């Protein structure tokens, strides 16, 4: 059989192969004609609704917990919204009214949701998505009321690819990443709920394929290529092989070295402690960037020292327990990096004052938010005294002067002195600077003399070197970290860092591109830190690299003056 290709939007950078199971939830909205109003026992129908509402609430709470555990708090929040709408007085009043008119509970539910769904459908943007949420809640109630069996997405055989028109939040919550090798939907975009969850779970996914997806029948073998954004039915041998190679980029648990024996640390970037376990599973040697903003973005007040201590310690413990080898896994925690594009509700940051060129990162930690910085340092120094925290390292963001660095190091000293006088156990972790401003690349030698390591954040570094704001679409051409100016800045930073006796890592997007691994090794980086999903690819790439060849490649790339020529060399 010849292969058929269905183009869509790739939602994950992974490829999977498996056997199709169509997910076609029973259309619960197709109700029988209602009986004559006077034959309906309103009281009984009301009780029926109350029971279904209670069951729906229990289901939603269970799905919220499951999503929170598997994926994260942000993704679980959608279920809070569903719970709120489920018990909304407007819906309850609508059902009540319809039951009073002599409608059975399912018909009453249909009627009560109709107006609000239409209303939200007519609105723009985010609000229009509320209509999908409402349909999801309505259909859940109808399924419970009509006793329709739920299509069980949680117990599909291993190697299943799920095809669907659209996956709702409640559908996606059931997906088991161990047995599902791919997802493709006819509708939806990259930001659809299903796409986001699939990315978090590392399931290959293609969305927005269109009606053509229906041509693929149950039992067909398909490749879901989330990199290229294509679903291939009855794939030919080449496509199968590509998928298998991709899925078989097997996890390398141990530390890796190049073919000629240079050790390269491959670490993970984490946004929350919940991401630590999946990162260990994908073979991360440690953490090269643990962002601490999550602690501040949820909730309405800054976290206290103990909350931070618990969060940092839990990541250290996950790695200490999960990583093979005798060395303490290194966990680089970046101190609070707010401002720029990262607002915090309760800190009242001004978009101008605290924008990309304003008071952000270390600048805030040394001035108006010195209290937050101090509690963060206290938590970190306490973790450094624990067994699991032996590999802890602390990194300061957006440093652009030696004065700032020295002020930050002074704070570390004074926090250590405080803990000492209080009789609290503490340790002084490895300290480092994140290199992300042009100034910091020029001062890398001065920094390296004062700290243990430098880590290059290529996203911000590219923005500042190229003078092109990260979040502006029109500036995307400038935002390529392969731009010669950026590569030269990286090169001088690595050299200056090594001269000063510091190790040098990279924690921007660039570090996670397996096609650039050879170049980065050639530029002399000691550590590469990336989102966990690309770790197996990068680790296997490291093993193929010969350092001499890599250095020759770096030299040739640094010798050219345009982005086009850089690309030609790669």
């Amino acid at each position, binding site marked *: 059989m010849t292969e058929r290709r269905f183009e869509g939007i790739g939602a994950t950078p992974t490829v999977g192969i498996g056997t199709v199971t169509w997910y076609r939830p029973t259309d619960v909205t197709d109700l029988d004609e209602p009986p004559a109003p006077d034959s309906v026992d309103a009281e009984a129908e009301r009780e029926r609704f109350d029971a279904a509402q209670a069951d729906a609430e229990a289901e939603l709470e269970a799905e919220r917990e499951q999503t929170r555990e598997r994926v994260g708090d942000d993704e679980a929040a959608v279920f809070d919204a569903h719970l*709120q*709408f489920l018990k*909304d*007085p*407007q*819906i309850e*009043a609508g059902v009540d009214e319809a039951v009073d008119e002599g409608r059975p509970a399912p018909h009453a539910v249909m009627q009560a949701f109709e107006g*609000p769904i239409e*209303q*939200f459908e007519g*609105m723009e943007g*985010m*609000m229009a998505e*509320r209509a999908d949420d*409402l349909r999801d809640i309505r259909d859940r109630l109808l399924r419970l009321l009509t006793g329709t069996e739920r299509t069980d997405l949680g117990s599909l055989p291993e190697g299943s690819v799920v095809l669907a028109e659209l996956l709702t939040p409640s559908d996606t919550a059931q997906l088991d990443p161990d047995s599902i090798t791919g997802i493709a939907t006819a509708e939806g975009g990259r930001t659809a709920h299903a796409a986001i969850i699939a990315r978090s779970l590392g399931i290959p996914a293609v969305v927005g394929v269109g009606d053509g997806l229906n041509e693929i029948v149950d039992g067909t073998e398909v490749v879901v290529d989330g990199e290229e954004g294509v679903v291939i039915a009855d794939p030919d041998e080449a496509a199968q092989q590509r998928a298998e190679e991709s899925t078989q980029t097997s996890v390398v648990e141990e530390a890796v070295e190049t073919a000629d024996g240079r050790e390269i640390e491959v670490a993970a970037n984490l946004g929350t402690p919940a991401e630590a376990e999946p990162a260990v599973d994908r073979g991360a040697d440690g953490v090269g960037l643990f962002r601490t903003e999550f602690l501040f973005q949820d909730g*309405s*007040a800054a976290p206290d020292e103990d909350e931070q201590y618990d969060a940092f310690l839990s990541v250290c413990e996950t790695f200490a327990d999960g990583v093979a080898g005798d060395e303490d896994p290194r966990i680089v925690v970046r101190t609070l990096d707010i401002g720029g594009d990262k607002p915090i*509700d*309760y800190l*009242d940051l001004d978009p101008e004052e605290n924008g990309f060129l304003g008071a952000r990162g270390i600048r805030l930690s040394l001035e108006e938010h010195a209290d937050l910085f101090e509690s963060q340092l206290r938590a970190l120094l306490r973790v450094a005294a624990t067994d699991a925290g032996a590999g802890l390292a602390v990194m300061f963001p957006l440093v652009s002067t030696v004065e700032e660095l020295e002020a930050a190091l002074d704070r570390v000293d004074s926090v250590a002195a405080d803990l000492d006088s209080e009789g609290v156990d503490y340790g002084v972790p490895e300290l480092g600077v994140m290199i992300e401003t042009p100034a910091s690349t020029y001062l890398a030698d001065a920094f390296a003399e004062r700290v243990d390591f430098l880590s290059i954040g290529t996203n911000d570094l590219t923005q500042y070197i190229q003078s092109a704001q990260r979040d502006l679409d029109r500036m995307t051409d400038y935002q390529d970290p392969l731009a010669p100016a950026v590569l030269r800045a990286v090169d001088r930073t690595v050299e200056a860092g090594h001269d000063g006796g510091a190790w040098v890592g990279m924690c921007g997007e660039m570090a996670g591109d397996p096609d650039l691994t050879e170049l980065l090794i050639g530029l002399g980086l000691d550590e590469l830190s990336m989102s966990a999903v690309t770790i197996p690819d990068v680790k296997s790439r490291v093993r193929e690299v010969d350092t001499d060849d890599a250095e020759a490649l770096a030299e040739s790339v640094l010798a050219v003056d345009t982005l086009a020529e850089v690309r030609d060399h790669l």
Partner: protein
Amino acid sequence: MERTLTVVPDDGLHARPAATFVETAGSFDAEVTVKAVDGNRPAVSADSMLGVTGLGVRGGDDVRLVAEGPDAEAALDALEAILSTPEDELDDMELP
């Protein structure tokens, strides 16, 4: 008892301001409804997230609050305070 006022938070009655508004409305012994002055949608119960977000009220829009019941005045005072507070200052507010 009724009151007409201009909504200050940029997002209007969405997301967090709406959630705070709905929660507060539900905490008083009063029946409160809200309506967008320029909108053609009927007044909705102020303790319904669905109703309140469905009004599509944005920052700068005028809304009319109508309250009945023992706590009507206190409810209107609290809700007015929420609608007059920029979103980023909501957390500093003392809510009942």
